[in-house]
């Protein structure tokens, strides 16, 4: 009897789960049988400051001192470095040097994908059978992911055109037709209008989604590259998105020079 038990124990898979290889968590289903990703989520990292690893640094506004200094971060890029084409590195450096003038986030412009995901504001997934709507607190940005047969973008846009489908527990979203005007972060990482992003949302636990985005743009990068990070559910009672309608806050910057002089 003991011999049989020993054999069974030896034959059973006993792989100790590493962080990267946990067996897929099976998230509760929606009423139509799909993994349920609905809820309010937020990234908890400094990716919006700089996708690549970075030390802390002084901020751009002296009078704000430590309040708006650049916090440190390990980076979210697989392989640590974004693979710019040699001809594109000058523009990245210029962007980075002049970021307060050039970063569209400063002007409250729509962030595009994937930046919308890791801005320091929550977003809400409203998941329905044919559409997944994602409402972002930042600038009231929104996109509706088509979950039916893929459709083509009618025109280019800031938030791009999203077609989604399920691969097991993972929501896979293909994003095309983004305007070239968005950045990936506050450090001048940029792209062209050939940008193609494929996102993967894989629930790890009831309150964590593993988020990955593969970024491809042959005009700017020498190969596709990937970012990854956890997304955390906002579990406060009655958590909800509030308004961050920031055009008002960028108004003086954008239109102050056109104000009537006394």
């Amino acid at each position, binding site marked *: 009897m003991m011999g049989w038990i020993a054999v069974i124990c030896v034959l059973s898979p006993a792989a100790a789960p590493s962080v990267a290889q946990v067996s897929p968590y099976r998230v509760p289903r*929606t*009423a139509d049988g799909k993994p349920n990703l609905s809820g309010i989520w937020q990234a908890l990292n400094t990716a919006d400051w700089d996708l690549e690893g970075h030390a802390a640094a002084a901020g751009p506004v002296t009078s704000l001192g430590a309040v708006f200094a650049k916090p440190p971060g390990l980076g979210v890029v697989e392989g640590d470095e974004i693979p710019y084409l040699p001809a594109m590195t000058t523009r990245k450096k210029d962007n980075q040097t002049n970021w307060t003038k050039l970063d569209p986030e400063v002007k409250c412009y*729509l962030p595009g994908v994937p930046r919308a995901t890791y801005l320091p504001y929550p977003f809400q997934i409203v998941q*329905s059978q*044919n559409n997944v709507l994602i*409402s972002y607190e930042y600038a009231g940005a929104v996109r509706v992911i088509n979950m039916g047969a893929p459709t083509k973008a009618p025109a280019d*846009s800031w*938030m791009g055109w999203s077609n989604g489908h399920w691969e097991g527990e993972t929501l896979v979203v293909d994003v095309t037709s983004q305007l070239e005007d968005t950045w990936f972060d506050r450090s001048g990482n940029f792209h062209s209008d050939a940008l193609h992003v494929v996102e993967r949302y894989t629930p790890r636990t009831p309150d964590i989604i593993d988020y990955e985005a593969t970024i491809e743009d042959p005009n700017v990068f020498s190969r596709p590259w990937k970012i990854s990070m956890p997304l955390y559910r906002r579990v406060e009672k009655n958590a909800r998105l*509030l308004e961050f309608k920031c*055009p008002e806050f960028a108004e003086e910057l954008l239109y102050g020079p056109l104000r009537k002089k006394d």
Partner: protein
Amino acid sequence: MTYRSLASVIAFAAVIAASMLAQIPAAVQAQSPATPAKTASATRAWTPPLLPDGKPDLQGVWTNNTVTDLERPKALAGKEFYTEAELKDLQNQERQRLYVTETEGQPPANHSGVEGAGADDVHYDFSQFGLDRAQAKLAWSRRTSIIVGPEGTIPPLTPDARKRLAEIRAKAKGHEFDGPEMLPLGARCIARVNVVPLLPSAYNSNLQIVQSAGYVAIETEEIHDVRVIPTDGRSHIPGNIRQWYGDPVGHWEGNTLVVDTTNFTEMSPFRGAQNLHVIERFTRVDQDTILYQFTVEDPGMWTKAWSGELPITRINGQIYEYACHEANYGLADTLRGARVAETDAAKNSAK
């Protein structure tokens, strides 16, 4: 461009927004019950498709584009509904109006409706941009105004509100283009007047509804504003947190989604009200129609609450991204134009 031209352009746009003129009938005619009682029975008559969680399906892409004014025109005082024959007349008139606009290039001068407009004032011909109301699907109604009831008008302002608005107008006089804060919230791409309550716009009166368990999300195309309405009957956010579109809390009453919205900012985008409270009801009444009803109250603003009703009809298409702020050349150019006009005026007076 002179101040007067700018003002007349803005006024003209407002007239278009309030235009009574009718158009080619849409495939669907919305329900227009003759009495409130009939409304109740009409909404109970049809069972909507239910989502897997048992709630009525309000999803889809819709429009509330209409020719019906918010307030009943004086000429129609006391008449809450058109007859079917009168409705057909309206539709023919609208068809004719669009035809004239498209073929002659702009509305006839004597129909512009803009006070003091002259032959050389600029007229927006929306039809050349495909933005004329009649070039999009219209949700028809036999109502003579969106506001229901025998009067069909917004109730009188309270004396306090009248005084406050007069003071604001007086202060603004001569300063209308001093800076961005003097221009309407919509022109600044901060907020629009047609989100809460869900009123039609001059164009792009399009919206998309997506539902998940416990939430109804309504995205209006203009500015891409999204209201994510929880339907778990939770309490409102603390009273000191005020938002442009307030804080919506919903619940289902049978097949009707009832939404209660409070916590509007004192600088409410809606008609200058400072303490708005809006109650809305969404009921799907047939395959392609949602009956939308709303009540607005603000005791500091109007002497009594007022209510309106309009149909929302399904459209075949998608919501486009309306990147209002990102491409807001209008605001910059308006201010720039005002500065040029001032410089010109100064030069002329110096001569």
